[in-house]
């Protein structure tokens, strides 16, 4: 089936889409450059700029909806960015149904989180700087989803990475924050390297990085090339989205201020990987192995996230592992291909609402509890923080998939789609993994909810007077709660239709190993069992300290030993390599000189004493290099090499 991808040029109002990126960027520049002069009003400028982008986004969205379904896209080339040989990269933007929904998510949820941060960061002396980085992040994220080629996407990709690194390290006084920033940075670099190499492979084989031209050129590539390309993009996506095996940084990134966790590590940046794969859907559709790998990554991660999340006691870390796990569902969705692309995007949007809601709720709890984060030391907060409790409850019910809240409409279809894979064993493995994940999700989210808001009060600090947060923090919570309740059924059909121009029309569903009704019933049953189990176990509270536990729980508490694995496999050899190189650079060459000198005997030993500096060792290293280079050439000439 030959399908050409074409984008219509931007006309009318849509030729102003560059404003979406420019407004937050300008605001960031003002906030960071003006310095203390902007301290008084800087945060409001930050909020306004994102809100302005949101309003513009709505206008553009409406305009896009007004276009004919066949040409529902707007491509805008701002200027020729770089041209190397046959390759030409424009600084170009693309506003199509897929980037449209992302723009609304980023700016919409982003505005609410910005508003919340005004209250949350009120007593922080660095609030203006914080909003500067925050706006920078929004601009970069918008560039990521609005670029019309992979290089623009890479720009945004690096930009959000940089902004998130700065934001995680924002509370620099905590050493753990600085370490977490480093970890996030390093793991992301692994992913970035994958993406960058993938982009260079596009040049090498296709000579272009524009979405349309890349997708149209795929049919001319060998299956292996497509596989390698897709895997490299997948590595990039895994790094950014905290998927197996690059998941370790995301939970540690919770050291940053809570609004950062909500915006970057729940609603937007971590979903960039899903965007990348969804955007590259022709690549993934073209190769079945790729789809299988993506599905496997999603399934492994979603189970891993659930299991670890069930053993954690830090409220933000539980939410973080749950994010890892939910993005696993999205990867599962985009890996399944076909109609499941749209399902993954719908889950992504719904997740953006309910996870941001719960993160901000967690922030509100911490605000009232002197920054306590241990859920073993909460309890009975439902009486003291009514709004937070109720809004959090909507998020909780939404994520575990209780109808008619949004998670039910977005997660359950993915489970059903997993059961519909054509190969029977795959359908069973991935379907059951997704189903088991739903049960586990219900378990750990209920544990979190019950331990925090119900049961006896287990507060450990004196004079603790839990109180509701100010209005500026609760209003965003309420709005996000409405989103958590309603977004699911609002989006379930309309968004799927809306995205048809990007992902192609949904093909007739093959019948899976289980009927659709059966799956709906099953997933509701496991959810109720998981939630009920957790409720009965934890409704009377829990011990203040973690108790000795069996193998599984211990393993889960230690992140299933993935950190230990990373340390042993990547960190130690890296450290040793660096040390060895430093050693060689400083000492090793000298050592060789000394060794030779000793062997030659006393005469050269005396000679050595005459030489003071280290020039001799440098000269020796040059000589060695020279012998190697000349030796290599002569060896090539004589036919010993190559």
């Amino acid at each position, binding site marked *: 089936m030959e399908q050409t991808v074409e984008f219509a040029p931007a006309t009318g109002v849509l030729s102003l889409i560059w404003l979406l990126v420019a407004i937050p960027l300008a605001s960031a520049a003002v906030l960071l450059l003006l310095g203390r002069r902007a301290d008084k009003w800087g945060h409001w400028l930050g909020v306004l700029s994102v809100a302005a982008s949101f309003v513009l986004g709505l206008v553009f969205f409406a305009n896009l909806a007004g276009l004919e379904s066949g040409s529902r896209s707007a491509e805008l080339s701002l*200027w020729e960015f770089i041209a190397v040989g046959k390759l030409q990269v424009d600084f170009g933007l693309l506003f199509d149904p897929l980037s449209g929904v992302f723009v609304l998510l980023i700016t919409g949820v982003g505005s609410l989180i910005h508003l919340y941060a005004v209250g949350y960061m009120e007593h922080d002396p660095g609030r203006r700087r914080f909003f500067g980085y925050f706006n920078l992040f929004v601009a970069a994220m918008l560039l990521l989803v609005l670029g019309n080629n992979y290089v623009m996407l890479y720009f945004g990709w690096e930009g959000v990475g940089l902004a998130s690194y700065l934001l995680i390290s924002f509370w620099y006084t905590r050493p753990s924050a600085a370490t977490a920033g480093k970890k996030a940075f390093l793991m992301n670099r692994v992913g970035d390297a994958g993406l960058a190499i993938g982009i260079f492979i596009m040049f090498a084989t296709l000579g272009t990085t524009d979405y349309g031209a890349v997708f149209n050129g795929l049919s001319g590539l060998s299956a292996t090339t497509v596989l390698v390309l897709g895997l490299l993009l997948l590595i990039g996506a895994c790094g950014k989205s905290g998927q197996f095996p690059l998941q370790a940084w995301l939970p540690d990134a919770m050291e940053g201020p809570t609004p950062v966790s909500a915006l970057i590590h729940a609603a937007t940046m971590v979903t960039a990987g899903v965007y990348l794969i969804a955007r590259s859907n022709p690549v993934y559709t073209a190769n079945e192995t790729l789809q299988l790998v993506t599905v496997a990554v999603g399934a492994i991660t979603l189970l891993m996230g659930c299991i670890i999340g069930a053993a954690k006691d830090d409220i933000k870390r539980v939410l973080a592992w749950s994010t890892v796990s939910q993005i696993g569902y999205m990867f599962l969705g985009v890996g399944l291909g076909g109609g499941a692309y749209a399902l993954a995007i719908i889950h992504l949007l719904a997740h953006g609402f309910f996870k941001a809601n719960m993160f901000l709720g967690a922030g509100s709890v911490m605000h009232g509890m002197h920054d306590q984060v241990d859920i073993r030391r909460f309890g009975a907060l439902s009486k003291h923080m009514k709004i937070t409790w109720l809004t959090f409850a909507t998020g909780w019910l939404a994520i575990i998939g209780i109808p008619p809240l949004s998670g039910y409409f977005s997660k359950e279809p993915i489970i059903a789609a997993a059961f519909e894979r054509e190969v029977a064993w795959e359908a069973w493995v991935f379907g059951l993994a997704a189903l088991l994940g739903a049960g586990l999700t219900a378990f750990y989210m209920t544990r979190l909810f019950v331990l925090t808001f119900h049961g006896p009060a287990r507060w450990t600090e004196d004079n603790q007077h839990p109180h509701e947060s100010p209005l500026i923090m609760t209003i965003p919570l309420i709005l996000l709660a409405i989103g958590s309740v309603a977004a699911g059924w609002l989006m379930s059909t309309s968004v799927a239709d809306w995205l048809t121009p990007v992902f192609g029309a949904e093909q007739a569903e093959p019948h899976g190993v289980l009927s659709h009704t059966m799956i709906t019933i099953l997933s509701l049953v496991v959810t109720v069992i998981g939630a009920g189990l957790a409720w009965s176990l934890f409704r009377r509270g829990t011990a203040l300290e973690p108790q000795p536990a069996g193998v599984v729980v211990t393993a889960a508490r230690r992140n299933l030993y993935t950190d230990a694995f990373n340390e042993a496999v990547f960190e130690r050899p890296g450290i040793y390599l660096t040390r060895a190189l*430093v050693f060689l650079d400083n000492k090793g060459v000298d050592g060789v000189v000394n060794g030779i000198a000793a062997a030659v005997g006393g005469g050269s030993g005396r000679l050595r004493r005459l030489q003071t500096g280290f020039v001799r060792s*440098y000269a020796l290293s*040059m000589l060695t290099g020279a012998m190697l280079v*000349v030796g290599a050439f002569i060896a*090539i000439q004589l036919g010993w090499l190559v």
Partner: protein
Amino acid sequence: MEQLELPSIDYAALLPMLILFGAACVGVILEIVVPRKVRNGIQLGLSLLAVVAALVAVVVERGTRTITIGGAVAVDGPTLFLQGSILVLGGVSLLLIGERTVEKGGAFVSQAAITVGSKKDMEQASGQPGSTEVYPLTTFALGGMLLFVAANDLLTMFVALEVFSLPLYLLCALARRRRLLSQEAALKYFLLGSYASAFFLFGVAFIYGFAGGIQLDKVHAAVANPTQSQVLLYAGFGLLAIGLLFKAALAPFHVWTPDVYQGAPTPVTAFMAACTKVAAFGALLRVLYVAFEGVRWDFQPVLGTIAVLTMFVGAVLAVTQTDLKRLLAYSSIANAGYLMVGVLALNDEGLSSTMFYLVAYGFSVLAAFAILSLVRDADGEATHLSRWAGIGRKSPLLAATFTFVLLAFAGIPLTSGFTSKFAVFGAAVEGGQTWLVIFGVITSMLLAFPYLRVVVLMWLSEPGESTPAVSIPGFLTSAVLGIGVLVTLGLGVAPSPLIDLTRQAADFVR
């Protein structure tokens, strides 16, 4: 007796070099006749004027394609572009060298021959005006560099190499502060430089034996139709390459770089990092593209291995550095590796993207060293990393500028660091050297770490007691900073005009 035929000389094509050498000679005479008080201004003015005049001559000559003085000098697109780059970067370096207000009397010692630590040394340390010989020395070095990138036979190339190296050795020894370190650096550079020159010369001898001539076109012809043993060719090429790789600071011939960069006066370090790099890679490009293109399949893997080694050594060792000058030295080593990736593309794109990279990197590195010269305490520049903790609180503008430059080194998009890496990697992919690009991407990811560590240190650490004051930059340093940052940004956002220019220039005459 055979009639000796005088070679024809195209003076117009040689004019840029003639202007610089002439100005340098005038500068030496001025040292004798002009009173000390006014010497600095006059010397600076003269050398800047010479650079501008030479630049004008280069621009007027654009489009020239000729080989003159009996095949010794080739003036073509790459020559003129590289000469122009050296002149522009050299002019900006001269501003840095001419700075006399940041430190009283400037960064240079007034009389280098005085014994370190003696009574006279104490006297001159307390603010005697720095020596003004630095201007003619710099001008001589610039002239040598212009000749180096234009040399069309190997002996002229060797002479040019020495002409620009000798003044550099001297300049390295002239630091006002930490004079022993500076003299040690100069001696090391001199000894190792001579050692490398010996390799080069030895290589020339082999090549002469192989080709029966030293003109690059003769070598090219001999490579295509060899009449002598190939061993002569390969041994000669290997030795020749070593001399060039040394100047370009590629591993394992990079060992001098950190010590010399650290010991030399900062303006001289900046000058070397920007201009020597252009000159060394210019000559390397000409030798590889004009003379030895016929054996590309044999040298590509060897030089490719060197490029990979260089990128790794530079990136990995940069991680553990605690001194900013050494960190920048290792970063410049890694950048030499990236440049080599572009060179090894061995196509027109490789040539043009390498030239683009040289210009882009030159401006960023000048700005970086200009910033280093501003952060100082009673003992001179404070280059230890720990001293920079929290400097963003005290001097946000300086820290922001440095952050921008470091992001450019890290290859973050919208800086010239991204576009230039992108260009050389793109060229290498087109030239079939994808493996080099993969290593390049991996090491550039590694290399971003030390840079961002500095950024975090500047902004996110508490300023310590020992965080030094930041000097107010003088007019000249401000100009260098402004130019460096603007070019880094400009080439990051809209690199096309310069890339077009390099592409038009990318055509060697043979």
